[in-house]
């Protein structure tokens, strides 16, 4: 059966291997350049004791390359659409399931081999792309400390492997259920995108209770160490209420990542903005206002990667189980 799977999908595998090789060469070459650029910048700024502002002055890599790396967020979805969707749907569509299932191999074994190999390929490709991106991003992560932020979190570490497994399983299941390749592909795109957005925006920040930190406006904010994830920031009034509310729109100025809704501040302080930010700060502090952030500390990065990967792997397992039931119980 392994040979049959290979014969059926070898051209897809070769195309994907070529694309991956090209991507790898690109990242390996530019990644080394970026690493040495970062090292020399670090060396020269340490000599002049001016490393504090390095994140704002040093630009690593080209914008095109950064965009390409950001776009790897769609790789799992592509695997699901082009590997998962057609895997079983195309056999139904062309009637070749009738050929395959009247040879001397049971449907269960046929399914196990096809699904097993394509999932393995999903892990290999998803893992390879993610490993390259993670390695390439090392100097950027060190410089900007943003790898826990949404966007970077989704393309580094182990979560892309979980996404790839889930997307491919989703494609397979949709194909087994609808028996139409195009429909399976469309369903894969829709469901995958929807679920990724829901998990990323609504679920992820609640994996562990966020920590909070309060700043006085009198001193520069002492931010959490390392690549923490700033989940939310707000100005809290003298009574402990959030000033301006969550839906505040209008001018605001930033204090340690916390937007200060200028329109909701006492009018006595507002007039001071144009004179001096420092006076504005002490005015707010004197009236009992302070800034508060809720955040996930950098130390939880791998715990969050693990939890999110676990969620998507579990969903993939459910989909595969459903596929096996549908294919072996339903008529060909």
């Amino acid at each position, binding site marked *: 059966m392994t040979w049959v799977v290979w014969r*059926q999908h070898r051209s897809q595998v070769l195309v994907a291997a070529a694309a991956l090789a090209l991507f790898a060469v690109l990242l390996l070459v530019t990644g080394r350049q970026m690493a040495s650029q970062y090292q020399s910048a670090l060396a020269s700024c340490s000599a002049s004791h001016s490393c504090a502002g390095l994140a704002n002055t040093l630009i690593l890599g080209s914008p095109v390359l950064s965009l390409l790396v950001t776009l790897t967020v769609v790789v799992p979805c592509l695997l699901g659409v082009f590997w998962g969707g057609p895997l079983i749907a195309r056999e139904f569509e062309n*009637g070749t399931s*009738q*050929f395959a299932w009247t*040879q*001397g*191999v*049971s449907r269960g074994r046929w399914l196990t081999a096809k699904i097993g190999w394509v999932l393995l390929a999903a892990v290999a490709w998803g893992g390879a792309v993610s490993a390259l991106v993670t390695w390439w991003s090392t100097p950027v992560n060190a410089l900007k400390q943003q790898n826990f932020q949404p966007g970077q979190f989704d393309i580094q570490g182990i979560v892309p492997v979980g996404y790839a497994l889930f997307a491919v399983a989703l494609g397979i299941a949709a194909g087994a259920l609808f028996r139409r390749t195009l429909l399976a592909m469309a369903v894969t795109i829709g469901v995958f995108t929807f679920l990724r957005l829901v998990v990323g925006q609504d679920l992820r920040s609640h994996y562990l209770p966020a920590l909070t930190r309060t700043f006085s406006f009198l001193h520069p904010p002492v931010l959490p160490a390392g690549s923490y994830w700033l989940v939310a920031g707000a100005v809290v009034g003298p009574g402990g209420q959030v000033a301006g509310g969550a839906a505040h729109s209008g001018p605001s100025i930033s204090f340690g990542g916390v937007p200060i809704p200028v329109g909701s501040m006492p009018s006595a302080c507002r007039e001071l903005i144009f004179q001096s930010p420092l006076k504005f700060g002490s005015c707010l502090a004197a009236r009992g206002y302070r800034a508060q952030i809720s955040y996930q500390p950098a130390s939880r990065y791998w715990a969050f990667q693990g939890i999110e990967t676990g969620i998507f792997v579990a969903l993939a397992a459910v989909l595969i189980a459903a596929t096996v039931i549908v294919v072996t119980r339903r*008529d*060909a």
Partner: protein
Amino acid sequence: MAAGGPAVVETRGLSKRYRNVRALSDVTITVPEGRVSALIGPNGAGKTTLLRLLSALARPTGGEIAVLGMVPRSDPAFLRGVGFLAQEIPLYRRFSAEDHISIGAHLNARWDAASVRRRLEHLGIPPGQAVGTLSGGQRAQLALALTLAKRPRLLLLDEPVAALDPLARRQFLAHLAEAAADGDLTVVLSSHLVADLERTCDHLILLNAARVQLCGDIESVLAEHQVLVGPRKDTTAIERDHTLVQAVRTARQTTLLIRGNKPVTDPAFEASDVGLEELVLGYMGQHGGQAPAHLTAIGDDR
């Protein structure tokens, strides 16, 4: 009915429903070993459904079924004995004949690759060319050769010649007859074209509107029926002794297809033997597939 070897196919009260559609209803048939059985019926009679149940591609919703002494199921022990060729001749269009031979070799414990290659060479079918670029006749021949390479004991073919031109049809049936001749192969072959099957088959399953109308050795089935031609007159006396399959009445003449071996005593009627095509058309002409006595009148001018 003529006895054969042990039954290769045996069903009792078999039925299959698809949601609200009854595809097969109370089907009881027996196909003895070594027979080439013609599964005949109009489009939509349930021929494909029956073949799919026999090959374990679909599961019945009622009744009993035994193929080669086993309940059809998707496991190697059952699959090795049965070869199935679906109506649309499903092959991987981008793969060559040689690719299909390799796939078969990997998926079957018993596989006669040499026989397929011999057959391709004999028919002049290029083994390295993508199957999608072959003619319909070549594809059908390849598919049959692949199905036979399993060395099945039961071969199930669903309308294999329907899409072929007369020459390809003849070649295909010759190939089939050859395969059936050497060995204990049993064949069930569906078609709605009787002429194709008359030369190849020695057993008949007549299906109409989800029900079996006839099942048995063709010779004995034909011997059980007679055609009566006589003047237009009352036929209740004949219907008392025989089962009336079909009656065609014109202004002056009555033609009856009846079942039963008793001699017809009415001197006004002349009895003659019935041909396979006539018999099949007689049964198919009935409405709704009711019990065989249901009467059809054509050209009635009362």
